[in-house]
């Protein structure tokens, strides 16, 4: 695995499967009376949240604490960031504190990339602007796998504001890596202009896609998109792209309904659909902690087995593992495409996987 998790494209198929398998292993401790493992004892994880997201922060915090890491929460509100300190200065502070891992949530796309250039610890992207949210995609894949088994050849339909969705970007990349067939559904205004270069299908007609879906993932649609003329009214959006009981009944029997939250009940998803047994929305939240434990363990903990080794050795042995897989690949990227190379490499679709 790479040293940071910034994009779902950082993960090879083997990396992704390792995370999902590790999460399966870790989920067993959820059934134990004591949920804590000593694996990351003595390690420091900083939750750096520049954007309000209590649910994601709590999820990462719980994950780190269950692995016995020291957790420092650093949010833009009430911190020096709101006084105009730059991300770089914040990064230098984290360096001085000796953070082994930094979980960053930021409203600017690419902030985790920048941070990774300024700190030595592993950077985990907890959502950056309209770019990516790779641990969300991992927990979604984990949830799908638990409900449906192997994802190879599974048909996943993602519906909503693709243009502004970091969840959609990470899911398209990860699901493609895992062999699933993804179809994106939205009004044409809510796709990026070059979505045809993405490794997925694109559709405008939700109803036509429903019978061919094993999974339907609904994305939150923000009402302010209406004032920017992305669609005429919330009512029309809901009618054309919302998941209601009628559409639910058009899905195959086994199909599941997902939503990364927070939901707009009555807009992209009807309340009765959100609360139906086909919905995995509550499971997704629980799975989020497990999957984030697996990510932190694999990035910070090393090569020892998550539970077996930790239980035997008290976890400390695992500390010394890990470094072999550190490559700094992300930091080093980009320079190659300058000058003449920039031109030679242009338009090579395979470079997408480097995102």
């Amino acid at each position, binding site marked *: 695995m790479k040293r940071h998790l910034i994009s779902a494209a950082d993960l090879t198929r083997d990396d992704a499967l390792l995370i999902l398998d590790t999460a399966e292993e870790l989920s067993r401790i959820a059934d134990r009376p004591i949920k804590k493992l000593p694996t990351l004892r003595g390690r420091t994880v900083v939750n750096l949240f520049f954007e309000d997201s209590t649910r994601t922060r709590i999820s990462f915090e719980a994950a780190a604490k269950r692995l016995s890491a020291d957790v420092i929460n650093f949010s833009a509100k009430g911190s020096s960031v709101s006084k105009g300190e730059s*991300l*770089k200065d914040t990064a230098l502070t984290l360096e001085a504190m000796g953070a082994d891992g930094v979980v960053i949530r930021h409203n600017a796309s*690419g902030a985790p990339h920048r941070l990774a*250039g300024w700190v030595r610890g592993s950077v985990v992207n907890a959502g950056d602007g309209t770019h990516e949210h790779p641990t969300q995609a991992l927990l979604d894949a984990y949830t799908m796998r638990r409900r449906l088994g192997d994802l190879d050849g599974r048909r996943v339909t993602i519906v909503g504001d693709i243009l502004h969705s970091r969840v959609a970007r990470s899911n398209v990349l990860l699901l493609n890596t895992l062999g699933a067939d993804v179809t994106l559904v939205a009004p044409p205004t809510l796709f*990026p202009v*070059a979505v045809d270069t993405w490794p997925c299908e694109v559709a405008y007609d939700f109803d036509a896609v429903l019978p061919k879906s094993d999974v339907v993932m609904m994305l939150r649609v923000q009402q302010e998109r209406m004032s920017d003329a992305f669609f005429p009214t919330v009512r029309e959006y809901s009618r054309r792209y919302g998941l209601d009981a009628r559409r639910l009944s058009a899905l195959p029997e086994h199909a599941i309904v997902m939503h990364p939250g927070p939901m707009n009940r009555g807009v992209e998803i009807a309340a009765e659909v959100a609360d139906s047994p086909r919905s995995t929305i509550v499971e997704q939240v629980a799975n989020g902690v497990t999957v984030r434990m697996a990510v932190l363990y694999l990035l910070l903990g090393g090569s020892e087995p998550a539970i077996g080794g930790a239980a035997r050795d008290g976890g400390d042995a695992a500390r010394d593992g890990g470094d072999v897989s550190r490559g700094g690949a992300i930091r080093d990227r980009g320079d190659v*495409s300058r000058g003449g190379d*920039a031109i030679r490499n242009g338009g090579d679709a395979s470079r*997408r996987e480097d995102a």
Partner: protein
Amino acid sequence: MFLIKGARILGGAPADILLRDGVVAEVGAGLTAPEATVVEADGLIALPGLVDLHTHLREPGREDAETVESGTRAAAAGGYTAVHAMANTEPVADTAGVVEQVWRLGREAGHCDVHPVGAVTRGLEGERLAELGAMADSAARVRVFSDDGHCVSDAVLMRRALEYVKAFDGVVAQHAQEPRLTEHAQMNEGEVSGRLGLAGWPAVAEEAIIARDCLLAAHVGSRLHVCHVSTAGSVEILRWAKSKGWQVTAEVTPHHLLLTDELAETYDPVYKVNPPLRTKADVEALREALADGTIDCVATDHAPHPAEAKETEWAPAAMGMIGLETALSVVHEAMVETGLLDWAGVADRMSARPARIGRLTGQGRPIEVGAPANLTLYDPAARTAVDPAAFVSKSRNTPFAGLELPGRVHATFLRGRPTVLEGKVI
């Protein structure tokens, strides 16, 4: 008095050039002048002093990024003998007072001629015309007017400006950017922006304004200059406008001739610029257009910023790149090494044509007897990695850091007086 020995004028056969009393006094083989300082120019190419139509000197207002002194030193180091200082200073260069101040600072610094560009609209606000005539009549003798950084998007205001400057043979230099189509825009809209989740700056936002302005210029019979053309579509529109015989000229920046939007993958705002870096197809179209003359000239859009304006996330970072000290090497790499232009072509696109567009009489002239002694000696054989720490400019925001580029400016002469010798600013 300087005697340049063995320089290849426009890359031709070696010749000696005698500079005396601010003009080229003699050109020929085996010249002697006992009182002259000899400059050995074996292997060096002599070009007319370069002229930049688009430089941000930042003074007054942002002296932390650049001053007239530091910016014109950088210009001289890059082989320039004249620059046009853009109007988006603080205060804006929208009155005779401000343009005269910048002009005077340029004269005092003495590294190259500074020709202030006047704002088209008061405060660059796009609402009312600035006193264009007063700036034209001032000591700065302004002939180029631009709201650069902002587009004169109001069609009526643009029409009036184009018409009004005819009275003093001025030209409106448009920063072509349809504002509504580029709200919050961060980079070229395309495959890369979609993948990176950065708001797109679509090519059509540039092309729509260029098309409109060409039609307006034709309608009122005025001169239009298009700043920093960046798309293949813009090139097609310009080619069409020129085929009609309309008075439309255009510039391209060095960075748009070499770099593509894939560099945004690093999220390093040193690659953030307005207009944004585009695609490989656009780069190729721009090179062809510069070669065939559809695009008249190279202009740097030298845009200095302090380090903290770039050491941030992409979205809040400032747009712009510095370019004066690397322009000639980049054009060498993109146009000469590729066989698209010879050195006479480089001289035309970087000196003669920009001087003509700016209506400068003492610049952009061929290196021949009687012409003002504005010239630069360039070593085409040098090849070095760009080192921002070695820049003369106050700022370091170059997208070329570490990139190996050909050539090096050896000397620059402004009316017979060296501003650069042995690669060092004097």
